[in-house]
């Protein structure tokens, strides 16, 4: 099924871009006329995925993070967060709650939170090449009122 609407945003892996990214996703999703609850769920999920990329993908320097948003006619919103960083060696392990290579504020629950707030979650990664997180959620009340 082809999307009826798409948006792509690329930004540097700076933590200051996290707020902007999750707000952009929420604003884009507004077209599906969601409830505030759904908006906040989306913000939370995007925040987790983007923060993962910002914190883990490029340990030595700054790199690119791409946020891709797609709306489908059946009211589904698809969000992809991609980086070209270090990648994840063992995705299964990374997705178990509380596993984390980071420190202090990270609790390793990012994937669990994403899973809980979205309908689907797919994680593709190759060490040295990068990581792509794709998640989707069905929102629609009515499409195309604008």
């Amino acid at each position, binding site marked *: 099924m082809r999307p009826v609407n798409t948006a792509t945003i690329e930004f540097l892996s700076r933590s200051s871009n996290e*707020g902007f990214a999750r*707000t952009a996703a*929420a*604003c884009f*999703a*507004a077209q599906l*006329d*969601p*409830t*505030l*609850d759904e*908006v*906040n*769920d989306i913000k*939370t999920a995007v925040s987790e995925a983007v923060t993962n990329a910002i914190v883990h993908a490029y340990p030595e320097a700054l790199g690119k993070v791409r946020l891709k948003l797609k709306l489908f006619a059946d009211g589904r919103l698809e969000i992809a967060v991609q980086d070209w960083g270090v990648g994840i060696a063992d995705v299964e392990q990374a997705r178990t*709650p*509380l596993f984390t290579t980071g420190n202090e*504020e990270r*609790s390793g*629950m990012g994937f*669990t*939170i994403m899973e*809980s*707030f979205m309908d689907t979650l797919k994680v593709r990664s190759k060490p040295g090449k990068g990581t792509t997180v794709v998640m989707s959620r069905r929102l629609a*009340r009515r499409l195309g*009122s604008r």
Partner: protein
Amino acid sequence: MKAPEADALLEAARGGDNDACERMMEENAGLIWSVVRRYYGRGADPEDLYQLGCLGFLKAVRGFDPAFGCQFSTYAVPKIAGEIRRYLRDDGAVKVSRGVKERAAAIRQARDRLSHTLGREPTLSELSAETGLEAEDIAAAEEANLPVASLQMEAGEDGFTLESMLGTDGMEEGVVERLALRGAIDALPERERQVIFLRYYKNLTQDKTAKVLGVSQVQISRIERKAMEHLRKELE
């Protein structure tokens, strides 16, 4: 003032002795001032702030029960700060963000109103019609969803906050205190640590937290209560 003397004074004040109340305020002027001064420079008159601090202090005197098992000052500090913060929030003394605050409040109120009449969560278009704000602006509003739990928020019937357990109040205070809190949280059993993290650092509702951890909301409530008790014991 020696401890037994201070206890007796507090007892008398709690019992409604006005002279004792006055005396308590004099004795604790330093404490009140130490909390109040953190709120200087936000556009509110220092005199007003001190009066509010005293009001909060009196509320603490009335509300304190030695059975809480903590120092009176531990209980009093958030009450003093809370009185001031309430005033600052409602008065809009921080003028720069007034528009943002008002908009967030409008969204919250509209959401409450519509949820009530519709019997369900309203959509952005419904909120937009109700508030006159653009759907995207509503989606972008960060404050429209108040943090459901925060360091300042009270947990439990006796009105303790996570912050008060640090024995201090306000973000300006010490790396040391925050490390102590962090250490205490890290020492919690895994389940409790997870709940505190999701509730207070990720600001999730109990409902959402339950979803993430795969348990019921009732269990989350129970775990959270236990975690708070552990933290309080740890940080005393």
